[in-house]
């Protein structure tokens, strides 16, 4: 164990899935034509004013409830002042001294079991636009489509001690956002963004070390790699008798290292003050209770239920519940055919494998829960063998057609008819007299050889049980 202890805190920006922006009625749709979803408010034109989107507040409250935050009955929108072309007003509307919610907690499962990570605060703010730097000309292009998309900023306590815990925390938080259906959690597209504060300190020391802020991590893998690199870098520095400098560092994806932004960053003085264009946000306790009553089952609770109700192993339950859609898929399939363990195995093995291979998420897959359930049932009812089932699965996965239909069309029904199989057995035995003799002489290992041949002859459709029966009758 290292002499150093790692301390990590994360700041998450989650884009909320509202229909319109936080302070105007423009669409939040992603991927449209540049500057298509804009209006005078997005452009920061003179004299126009922000009006708060109620749904964004609702989503903020839901998240706050899901992570046990105390919701402030009064919170204030403040202006964060700085100049940048993708910030049309010259300030970002955010929350500062009085955020929406504070003092929450979230349970995560990492290598060493369950751990509680503190949530410092959750506040609402507007997203900025996007600047694209021309590679050929001395200009940049500004697209304000994303300006004003509602964001939740979720700040954790510096409670994580390993990069793995940090990733587990991120996954847990993302899971909750997805369960609440308030954010699509797409790290690559930037709807779920993460910055990390990292420091090290000698084990046993209470005081925190000097921290660096790491940015530009666009996947869980990046987070893991960037943090591992940064921790190592800091340990090396300290062990060489040098000091960690407080700074912002960017993760270089290609090289897998973090680099100082020094020089590019100027001294910030954001001059926060309450935005006089917006009124204090007073949260009615009745509203909070309505939203609380309406909260869905959250990942940790669902995971525990999967273990107790379906007798699944912890690890499987964790994977199945990590995404709401996946857990829903599982439960819908089980409702069709009550074989949770078998369905779980199919999801954990074939389904996730194929999704991964194709880079798909469960919501983008063609196969339905009913089809998976039907497939498992076909095996259980001896209609097809496990081996054939895997072939059928690929068809169902790719085309979304019912497994029964695949089996029928391709003539894959398992042959359980003894008379039909008897001919095949005779044929195989007749073709291999030497092996038959050796088997009879006691070389019992050859049993597998015969079964394999028979199955092969029937293109895998032979029912192994029936084959065995015939074989033992013929060979003894």
């Amino acid at each position: 164990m290292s002499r150093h202890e790692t301390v990590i805190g994360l700041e998450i920006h989650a884009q909320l899935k509202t229909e319109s922006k936080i302070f105007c009625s423009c669409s939040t749709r992603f991927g449209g034509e540049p500057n298509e979803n804009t209006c005078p408010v997005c452009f920061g034109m003179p004299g126009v004013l922000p009006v708060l989107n109620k749904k964004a507040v609702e989503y903020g409250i839901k998240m706050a409830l899901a992570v046990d935050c105390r919701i402030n009955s009064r919170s204030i929108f403040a202006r964060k002042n700085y100049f940048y072309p993708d910030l049309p007003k010259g300030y970002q509307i955010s929350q500062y001294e009085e955020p929406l919610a504070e003092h929450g907690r979230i349970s995560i499962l990492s290598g060493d079991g369950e751990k509680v990570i503190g949530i410092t605060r959750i506040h609402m703010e507007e997203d900025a636009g996007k600047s694209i730097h021309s590679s050929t000309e001395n200009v940049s292009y500004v697209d304000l489509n994303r300006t004003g998309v509602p964001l939740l900023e979720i700040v954790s306590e510096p409670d994580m001690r390993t990069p793995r815990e940090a990733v587990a925390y991120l996954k847990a938080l993302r899971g909750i956002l997805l369960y609440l259906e308030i954010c699509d959690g797409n790290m690559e597209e930037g709807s779920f963004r993460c910055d990390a504060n990292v420091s090290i300190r000698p084990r046993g020391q209470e005081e925190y070390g000097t921290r660096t802020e790491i940015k530009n991590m666009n996947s869980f893998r990046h987070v893991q790699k960037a943090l591992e690199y940064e921790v190592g870098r800091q340990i090396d520095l300290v062990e060489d008798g040098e000091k960690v400098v407080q700074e912002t560092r960017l993760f270089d994806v290609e090289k897998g290292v973090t680099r100082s932004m020094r020089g590019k960053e100027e001294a910030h003085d954001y001059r926060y003050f309450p935005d006089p264009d917006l009124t204090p946000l007073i949260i009615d306790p009745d509203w909070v209770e309505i939203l609380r009553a309406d909260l869905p089952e959250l990942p940790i609770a669902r995971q525990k239920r999967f273990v107790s109700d379906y007798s699944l192993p912890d690890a499987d339950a964790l994977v199945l519940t990590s995404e709401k859609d996946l857990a829903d898929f599982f439960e819908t399939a089980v409702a069709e055919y009550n074989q949770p363990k078998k369905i779980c195995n199919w999801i954990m093995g074939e389904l996730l494998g194929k999704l991964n291979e194709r880079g798909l998420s469960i919501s983008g897959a063609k196969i339905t829960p009913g089809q998976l359930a039907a497939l498992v049932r076909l095996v259980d009812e001896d209609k097809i063998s496990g081996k054939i089932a895997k072939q059928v699965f690929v068809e169902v996965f790719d085309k979304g057609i019912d497994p029964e239909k695949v089996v029928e069309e391709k003539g894959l029904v398992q042959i359980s008819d003894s008379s039909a199989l008897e001919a095949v057995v005779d044929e195989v035995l007749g073709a291999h007299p030497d092996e038959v003799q050796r088997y009879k002489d006691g070389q019992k290992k050859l049993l597998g050889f015969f079964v394999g041949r028979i199955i092969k002859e029937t293109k895998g459709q032979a029912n192994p049980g029936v084959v065995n029966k015939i074989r033992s009758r013929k060979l003894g």
Partner: protein
Amino acid sequence: MKDIINKSLLEISKSLQMRQIKVREVVEACFDRIDQTEPKINALLCMDKESCLSRALEMDKSGPDPDKPLWGVPITVKDVFCTKEFPTTCGSKILENFQPCYEATLVEKLKNAGAVILGKNNMDEFAMGSSTENSAYKNSRNPWNLECVPGGSSGGSAASVAAGQCFASVGTDTGGSIRQPAAFCGITGLKPTYGRVSRFGLVAFGSSLDQAGPMTRTVADSALIMNVISGHDPKDSTSASRPVPDFLAALEKRQDLKGMRIGLPTQYWMEGLSPETLESCRNAVDAARDAGAVIVDVEMPHARFGIAAYYIIAMAEASSNLARYDGVKYGVRDKSSADLQEMYRKTRSRALGEEVQRRIMIGTYVLSAGYYDAYYKKAAQIRRLIQQDYLRVFESCDLVCAPVTPSPAFKIGEIIDDPLQMYLTDIFTTSLNLAGMPGMTIPVGLGRDTGLPVGVQLIAPAFEEALTLQAGQVMENALPGVGTPTGLG
């Protein structure tokens, strides 16, 4: 023409509704008056004679609409309001030729009420100033004495109304910018309660202080404009959802001030008033007393901190509100700059005027790390105390009466080089904006020494504009009035 342009808004509106006069005649009379007076007073930044006349012809064809209280009435608006049909410059080079694709709610309401907007009034750049000398385009002049300022920042509006170019203008008041020019030009100007009139489309200076209001030749005219522009606007989160009374009807309910208690804050009736201002304002108080009002002295212990708190808050908000003028999305850009930061600096320092830069800088300073608590937060605490002063006074009084300015209009160039001195002329007007209360200037007479108009302020509790209008009209009837401006020849 004189017959037409000397009428009040109410009178001309009645004549128009009764078809005693054509819209075209009224609009033409106004443009004739503009042709005659504009070279002297520079009250307008833009106008559109042609389209106003063709609009007038159409209106004459279709006939009056009794549901439109401003049908056919020519008015002007301060160039601080966004308009689709005119450029909106806010008196600044940085918005030269800026043509909004949206319209201020207030402008929509005026148009829907049938008003004919002749043009837009000159103003101090971004409404920052007390003399209209900070306009990037022209110096407006006081119709009573062309060597004097018309006041500011709604100086163009005040001069235009006083000179008879139009029947009303709408200005804005952040720290006195309606009431002070109204006093300097001898007209009526009402700053409504914060939230009474939508700020949507009003180019912001100090967002928690800005409020639009009427500038007219009579109190009743202001009441009529208030009926049109007041009310909740879903596009402005700070606009009040309270019901709006019929202000014009309210005027008929009071012929005297019997039973009304009017407080005179001792802090405002002592220091620094010029003798003629004091005399004229005393006459106004006497008129109120004669009309039956009970006059009492009241205390506003925090009044002396008003200017400091006001300027800190106004400048802090302005520093943030004006960050958007950066040469990226609209307005002008310095094209000589190769990189972005240089473009920001050059654009802003070349296209923003000195007073605007001064206020942006002080506002930036009072919000910056290490100074926020000592200045911005402290000012906000004093703001609370000033609001409490008012609330306490209104427990025993219906209205507060105070001078508007320490002395009548000063000369152009007289104090422009001493910014602090200029700020101090706002001593009687700023506390009202801090507290959000409504206040109205009415002309009380001409100063004995200068012969220039002197005004007095009537201040009411929040959302009690009707009270200031009622008292104002009683006093207007009792006072000699100022007559027509003497500086136009």
